[in-house]
């Protein structure tokens, strides 16, 4: 017997005991109809070959281990960024259980969202009654200041019309006529979670700026010199938005963060559950129309929102998840140019410190090869930072990146001598990445938690940057934007590099002459 009351064995120790090992071996040989181990080994080796890679890349229909989610997740992420707002997803209820779980597993925080719980009868007759009852229940139970509606693919396939449904629900008294119920159609079979972010944010701004679905006069823009800031779908939203606020405050810029979910995904444990916390006030969301300019930190999260804002007379600027020195320089210079405010002395010092840190450590990163995967903007930002460090972002893969993104990436590679042998892979998945890592190995892999399977199979050490990160805690609290954020990313990369060197030099009397104390 292996289990012990004094020192309780967890699953990872318990099942390694001889009784269990014997039991599992018997189960396999007697009952599982296993393949010959030699055959398994042969296929395992074959799956590493260029021949396999070719077949793998010839796939036209099958997706294996994609690095993207669906639109409504992005819509929910946006909605909770507004003061007192409850996301309401019209369609099947299981979807909402999934979004809530997904966000909670990443942020280790509650994630509140309701569904209109459509079932088979709604599939036949449409979901109008679900909308009518659902809005009334949500309004009465959770007393939100706003209910932001989006859709699952079920509602989209049957063609439910949110505008008409919400109007009818208001007529039936589900919520008061003047109550804010912005909406966005977010079909899961178009784009990804970043598309959903875009659609939902546009839907909310459209609601406040363009006459609340015909129930109020459109707002007339009176420029007030403020700057709107849009973060985009971001696993580091808690750390990043707080860092951005600090930067704005250092520069004395008046700003509005749109969809500010940095507080709702970081509430204190003090005896009270806050279903709503912080967020862009509805007043600020409406008044955001008067801003001088709007900045999007992630171009591919705001492909529709930013032109919409531009059409309202704003100057707009989009970045690609800026990480590191030059990207942050550009961000700050743009801010400075737009507002006429000089870049704060403190930020200049932070810049110098990041450059200092990179100079101190670059010898360990220089020339190293990296594979990166994730959302299109994140990939761009990280690749640009690696190039600054003299590293090579050899494979950059984005399941939800398109051809235009790939061209932009190729442009980035062309701008640096370190980008010479680097390639972008739009629309590919992590099974493609597996072939890339076997056939053109790199030193490190950057990606989300699911990269751990690639790390296990290919031996490429994983640096966890991205969304979701389920199996490491609290990284979302630290920014990756701004010079300070760049510092965090640098340290994360360096820690892994040094850990790997130590791991590979620690066999006594064999390799430990390189097990250095000073690096």
């Amino acid at each position, binding site marked *: 017997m292996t289990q012990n009351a004094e020192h309780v064995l967890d699953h990872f120790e318990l099942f390694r005991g001889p009784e269990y090992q014997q039991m599992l071996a018997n189960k396999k040989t007697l009952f599982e109809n296993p393949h010959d181990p030699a055959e398994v080994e042969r296929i395992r080796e074959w799956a590493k070959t260029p021949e396999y890679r070719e077949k793998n890349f010839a796939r036209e229909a099958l*997706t294996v281990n994609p690095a993207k989610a669906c639109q409504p997740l992005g819509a929910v992420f946006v909605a909770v960024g507004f003061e007192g707002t409850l996301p309401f997803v019209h369609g099947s209820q299981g979807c909402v259980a999934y979004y809530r779980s997904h966000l909670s597993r990443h942020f280790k925080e509650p994630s509140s969202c309701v569904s209109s719980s459509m079932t088979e009868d709604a599939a036949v007759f449409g979901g109008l009654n679900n909308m009518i009852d659902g809005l009334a229940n949500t309004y009465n*139970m959770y007393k939100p200041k706003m209910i932001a509606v989006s859709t699952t*693919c079920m509602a989209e396939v049957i063609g439910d019309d949110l505008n008409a449904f919400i109007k009818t629900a208001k007529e039936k008294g589900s919520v008061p006529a003047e109550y804010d119920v912005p909406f966005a159609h977010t079909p899961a079979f178009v784009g990804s979670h970043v598309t959903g972010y875009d659609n939902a944010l546009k839907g909310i701004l459209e609601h406040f700026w363009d006459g609340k679905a015909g129930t109020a006069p459109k707002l007339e823009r009176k420029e007030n010199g403020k700057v709107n800031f849009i973060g985009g779908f971001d696993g580091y939203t808690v750390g990043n938005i707080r860092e951005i606020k600090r930067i704005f405050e250092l520069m004395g810029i008046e700003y509005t963060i749109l969809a500010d979910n940095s507080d709702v995904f970081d509430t204190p444990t003090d005896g009270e559950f806050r279903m709503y916390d912080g967020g862009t006030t509805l007043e600020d969301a409406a008044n955001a129309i008067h801003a001088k300019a709007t900045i999007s930190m992630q171009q591919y999260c705001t492909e529709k929102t930013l032109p919409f804002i531009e059409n309202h007379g704003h100057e707009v600027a989009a970045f690609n998840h800026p990480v590191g020195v030059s990207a942050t320089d550009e961000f700050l210079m743009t801010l400075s140019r737009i507002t006429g405010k000089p870049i704060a002395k403190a930020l200049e010092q932070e810049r110098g410190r990041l450059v200092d840190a990179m100079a101190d450590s670059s010898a360990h990163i220089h020339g190293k090869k990296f594979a990166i995967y994730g959302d299109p903007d994140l990939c761009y930002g990280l690749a640009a930072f690696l190039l600054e460090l003299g590293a090579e972002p050899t494979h950059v893969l984005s399941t939800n990146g398109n051809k235009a993104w790939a061209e932009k990436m190729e442009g980035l590679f062309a701008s640096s001598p370190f980008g010479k042998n680097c390639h972008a892979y739009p629309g590919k998945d992590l099974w493609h990445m597996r072939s890339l890592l076997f056939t053109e190995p790199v030193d490190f892999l950057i990606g989300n938690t699911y990269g751990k*399977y690639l790390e296990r199979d290919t031996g490429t050490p994983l640096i966890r940057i991205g969304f979701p990160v389920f199996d490491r805690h609290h990284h979302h609290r630290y920014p990756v934007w701004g010079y300070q954020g760049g510092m965090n990313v640098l340290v994360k990369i360096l820690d892994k590099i040094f850990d790997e060197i130590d791991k590979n030099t620690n066999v006594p009397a064999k390799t430990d002459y390189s097990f250095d104390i000073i690096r």
Partner: protein
Amino acid sequence: MSLATTESVAEIKARNKQLIDEVLKVYPEKTAKRRAKHLNVHEAGKSDCGVKSNLKSIPGVMTIRGCAYAGSKGVVWGPIKDMIHISHGPVGCGQYSWAARRNYYIGTTGIDTFVTMQFTSDFQEKDIVFGGDKKLAKIIDEIQELFPLNHGITIQSECPIGLIGDDIEAVSKVKSKEYDGKTIVPVRCEGFRGVSQSLGHHIANDAVRDWIFDKVNPEAKPAFESTPYDVAIIGDYNIGGDAWSSRILLEEMGLRVIAQWSGDGSLAELEATPKAKLNVLHCYRSMNYISRHMEEKFGIPWCEYNFFGPSKIAESLRKIASFFDDKIKEGAERVIAKYQPLMDAVIAKYRPRLEGKTVMLFVGGLRPRHVIGAYEDLGMEVVGTGYEFGHNDDYQRTAQHYVKDGTLIYDDVTGYEFERFVEKIQPDLVGSGIKEKYVFQKMGVPFRQMHSWDYSGPYHGYDGFAIFARDMDMAINSPIWKKTKAPWKDAPRPSLMAAE
């Protein structure tokens, strides 16, 4: 600590009834009427818990439930390790459920085993407009080429499939023929079907019946010689290794486990199950259907059991043994005796730290009742419980065998109700899921996820009980719960320090 311990049963009942009346006030009239049927206070001696169940969730209330796809792909089919399960439709469903359920298995992932992978048809707009059958056929070809050691394929339908009129059954038949009778199973588990995960379980069970059992060649040479002691474990998903810490006990008592459904299971095990002499059923909710079918068609009896906590484990081992001869009955006694010292040690260590502590549960499947005995073995008391997707037969079993008089019962609880109940009852521990975990921890209430075992486990069997006891102590007696109030505010709640 808890309010319940100082009250009489009559007081508790009155308090709980009042609580129900209070929460119902928040709803519009129509909703209040519907929700009232799902909330009650258990009366000892009644045959069920006095609540309605397995009805549609109400729009907009924040139900905790999932969907039929979650019940089929996520629960029943997903753990079958040597088959490839295609999440057929848009990318999200497969993405959110990817490797999230901790169904442990042994195998070379991506080569002969596929549980922690996400295969999807990633539907685009054109697939919705023109249909996805051709794409599905191509996907099966690509799977055959890139994953040649797979033993079979299932097609797990997401919402659009049933709405756009795709014929996945036809594709499956054609492709099965093309690949020499390969097992290809179409599953109609679109998320809008039914009212919860539950219908997905049923649909998945039926798919095993129609597309696996009915296709097994009765003339085929058996893969192994049958023995009089062959049993199958049904309804154990091997979360954190649960099925393994159960299997070991059955084998130690002299039985031979020929199949696991479905944690660490394989197609061959599913196919061989009709040879079992007895099906032992843990999660009744998700797999009673196939057990009943095997009873009717193959004459295999089935027996529910409960491997949470030493009292229920011993009771269950004896119950299972009663289907067999003296050799097995003696085997059961031998196993119970063998683990008695471990159980004594675990209880001696943890019971004093947990005695009198109260628990509120809200889980799926079998757990809202099955874990009660394990808590009681530790001197704890379950004061409220409810099922995410239970049916009346679940509430009957709960009433007749598990809950105490006056227990608060809440079916398909809403976020609002659960918060209010916990706020008022102030249990020492809440056991529910990831969506609930942080809500209650923010409130300062210790919490354990009782779906995923909060990334711990196994909790089944004797080995699992040691972990269960340790985890409950760790949750309740963590020093952090003393710190939720700043010292310059109210005094913190007293609690013990965790043992390790």
